[in-house]
C-alpha cells in the first residue's frame, strides 16, 4: 500500500499578472518507510511539492492520497489536523521559537494535537525526545545558545514529538557545515531504519541526496528522473 500517492499534481501561482506554473503534472508513489530525496535546481518546484505533500498548501489540480485519504480537497482545519498527527517538518533555518528553551520548542506540537496531556506529561515527553537525540543537557538552553547542529536536532525532536509517519525536510543541511550535515543525515538514516519513518528530503546537493535510498529529480515542475541511489 502506498503511503503517498500523487497523480498529475499541478500548482499554479499568480505572481502579479503573471501565472507561474510551479508544478506541471507530477506523479509519484512513495511507499511506507521509504527514504526519498527530491533534488533539482531552484525553481524546479521541489519546495512547492513539499508544501503540498506536507498539507501546508493544496494543489491547483491533481490528486493526493495520504495513506488512503484523499487530501487534495480537504478544509484548512483538516489539513492542520493532518500536520499535527501525521507529518513532521524540518526546515533549513530550523525555525525554532526565539527566547524559548529547547524543551518548550519540542513541546509546541503537543499544544495543538488535541490530546489532553498535562503540563508535566508534555514536559517529560519532550525531555525524553531530546534525550533520545542526545540533547538532555541542552533542554533549557535557548536557540541562540545552541550550535546549528544542535538547533537542527531540537527541530527534529519537535518534528518527531507527535510520532508522525512522515517526516518532510526542506534543505535540512543548508545552514550547516559538512561535518554537521553528515551527522544530521546519519540521524535521518537511523530514524528511517530504526523507526520505519517515511522520510522525504529536499536538497540541491547530490552528495546529501545520496544518503537517501531513492532520488527523485525535478526540473521545471515535472519529474525528470526517479530511481534508487546509484542507478542514475
Amino acid at each position, binding site marked *: 500500500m502506498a503511503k503517498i500517492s500523487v497523480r498529475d499534481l499541478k500548482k499554479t501561482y499568480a505572481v502579479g499578472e503573471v501565472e507561474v506554473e510551479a508544478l506541471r503534472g507530477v506523479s509519484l508513489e512513495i511507499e511506507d518507510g521509504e527514504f526519498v530525496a527530491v533534488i533539482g535546481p531552484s525553481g524546479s518546484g521541489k519546495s512547492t511539492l513539499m508544501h503540498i505533500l506536507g498539507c*501546508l498548501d493544496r494543489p491547483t489540480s491533481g490528486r493526493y492520497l495520504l495513506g488512503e485519504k484523499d487530501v487534495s480537497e480537504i478544509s*484548512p482545519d483538516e489539513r*492542520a489536523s493532518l500536520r499535527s498527527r501525521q507529518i513532521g517538518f524540518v526546515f533549513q533555518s530550523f525555525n525554532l*521559537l526565539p*527566547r524559548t528553551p529547547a524543551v*518548550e520548542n519540542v513541546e509546541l506540537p503537543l*499544544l*495543538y*494535537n488535541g490530546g489532553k496531556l498535562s503540563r508535566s506529561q508534555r514536559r517529560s515527553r519532550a525531555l525524553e525526545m531530546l534525550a533520545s537525540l542526545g540533547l538532555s543537557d541542552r533542554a533549557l538552553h535557548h536557540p541562540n545558545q545552541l550550535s546549528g547542529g544542535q538547533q537542527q536536532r531540537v527541530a527534529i525532536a519537535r518534528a518527531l514529538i507527535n510520532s508522525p509517519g512522515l517526516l518532510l525536510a526542506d534543505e535540512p543541511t543548508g545552514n550547516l557545515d559538512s561535518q554537521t550535515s553528515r551527522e544530521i543525515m546519519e540521524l535521518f538514516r537511523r530514524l528511517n531504519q530504526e523507526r520505519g519513518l517515511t522520510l522525504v528530503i529536499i536538497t540541491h546537493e547530490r552528495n546529501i541526496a545520496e544518503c537517501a535510498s531513492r532520488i527523485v529529480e525535478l526540473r521545471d515542475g515535472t519529474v525528470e528522473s526517479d530511481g534508487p541511489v546509484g542507478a542514475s
Partner: protein
Amino acid sequence: MSLEIALSGLKRYRLRTALSLFGLAIGVGCVLVTVGIGNGAHRSIQNQIRAAGLNVILVKAGNYKTKGDETIEVQAPHARLAPIFDGLDGLDRVFSALTPAVLAHPENDPMEKHDHPTAADRLGDAEAGLGAAATLTQEDADAIAKLPGVADVASGVHENAKVFAGERRWFTRLHGTDVDLPRIRRAHVVSMGRFFSERELRRAEQVVVLGSIVRDKLFASDADPVGDEVTLWNQSFRVVGVTASANWMTPGAVGDDEFDAVYVPFTTIHRLLNVTNLNTITVTAESTGEVSKVAAAVTDLLRARHRIADTAPDDFTVVTQASEVLTKGLHPNVARVLAGNLPNLERVTLEELSMTLERSSRTMMALLVSIALVSLLVGGVGIGNVMLLSVTERTREIGVRLSVGARARDVGAQFFLEALLLGAVGGVAGVLLGILASRLVSESFGWTTSLSPGVVVVSYGIAIAIGLVAGFFPARRAARLDPIEALRYE
C-alpha cells in the same frame, strides 16, 4: 490550553508586556483618579449645600410679630408670603414692641460681667426673644415626624448656662436636644466618644456632649474629656462625647451656637427645670426642593393642633435654615422683610445656586474625565499597536505554529487572548494604581476623593474592552496568514 499558549507568548516578550501593562494601568488609574477627584468635589459641594442646612426647617415657639402688641397687622396664613411693602409698613411698631423683650433677657443683665457673646450677639436681636413662648410640645414634634417628606425631627430646648469643669468655667449655649441631631447637622462630626443614646434620652440622664470650643475652654485643645464630669446648674453631668465641625473650611468659633455649645438630652432639661415645653423643633426635609412645601405643611399641622383660628396669627415661627442664615444679625425690621419674602427667594436662589454648583462641578468632571479618557485611549492604542507589531514581528512564529498543527483559529485565539490578558491584568493594575493614587491625593492635598464601585467596574470594563478591540484586529490578521508565506517571512 490557549490560555497557556497566550501566557507563554507574553512571558517571552517580558519588557514589551510590562510596558503595555504599564501604559494601560496608567490610563485606567488616571481615569479613576480624575473621576475620584471629580466625584469628591461634587460630593463636597453637595455636602456643603446640605451642611449649610438647605433642607433644615426650624420651628420656634412664639411669634415675635404678636408679642406684647396684638394691634400690629396680623398676617393671615394665606398672606405669609408677604410682599416687601407690607413688611415695611409696621416697622416702628414692631421695633418698639421688641425692645423691652430683648432688654429683659437675663443674659443682658447690666450687672453681670461676662467675657462671652450674649444671646443677642449669637442670634441677632430679632430672634433673641424668640422661643420663649410655651407653645410647642413633644407631641407636636411627634406629629411633625409623621408628615410626608420629613426626614428627621429633633426636639430642642435652649438655655444659656455656665458650665464648670474644676476651676474653669465657660458661659455657653445649652442645647437640650434629641438623638437625631447628628443626622440633621451634617456639618457636625462626633470627633470623640459618641452622641448620647436613645436610652439616655428616655431616662433623662445627666450626660453631655461638648462642642469643640467648650472642650477647648474647659479642658485643653485636643484634650479628650470623655468620661470626665462637668457641672451645670450645680448638677454633675458626665461627658460622653465631643462634637466638632466636619469641614475644615468652617471650624468652630467662640459664640457660634454650634461648637461653642453643649448638648444634653432635652428630657434632662425638662426634668431639671420642671418644664415640658420645647423651644424649637428642628425638621429636615427629605429633599432640598421640598423645603418650602414641608415648611407649609408643618405650619398647617401646627395651626390645626394648636386650634388657631384662620384669622389669628401663628403662635410659632417656621423658618428655614436659609432664612435664618440670611437674617442673622440684621436689624429686626429688615430681617422680617427678608424672612417674609424668603420662600420665593429660596425657591429661586437656592435652586439656582445648587443648579449652578451642580453644573460647574459637572463641567469640571467632564473636563477631567475627557482628559483621563484620552490617556486611556493612548494606552489602548499602545496595546493595539504592540499587538499589531507583534503579529508582524512574529510572522515566522505563526508559520511554525501552523506547520506543527495549529489551526488558524488557534493562532487567532493566541493573539486575541494575549491582548485580552494585557487588558485584564493592566486593568487590575490600573484599578489598584487609581485607588492608591486617589488615596495619596486626598492625603497629601486634603482633597476629597470618592470612588464608587460603579466607577471602578466601568473603568475595568473599559480596560477589558480595549483588550478586546486591540486584540481583535491583530488576531484576525494572524489567523489569516498563509502558512507558507508566514514560514518564508524574513
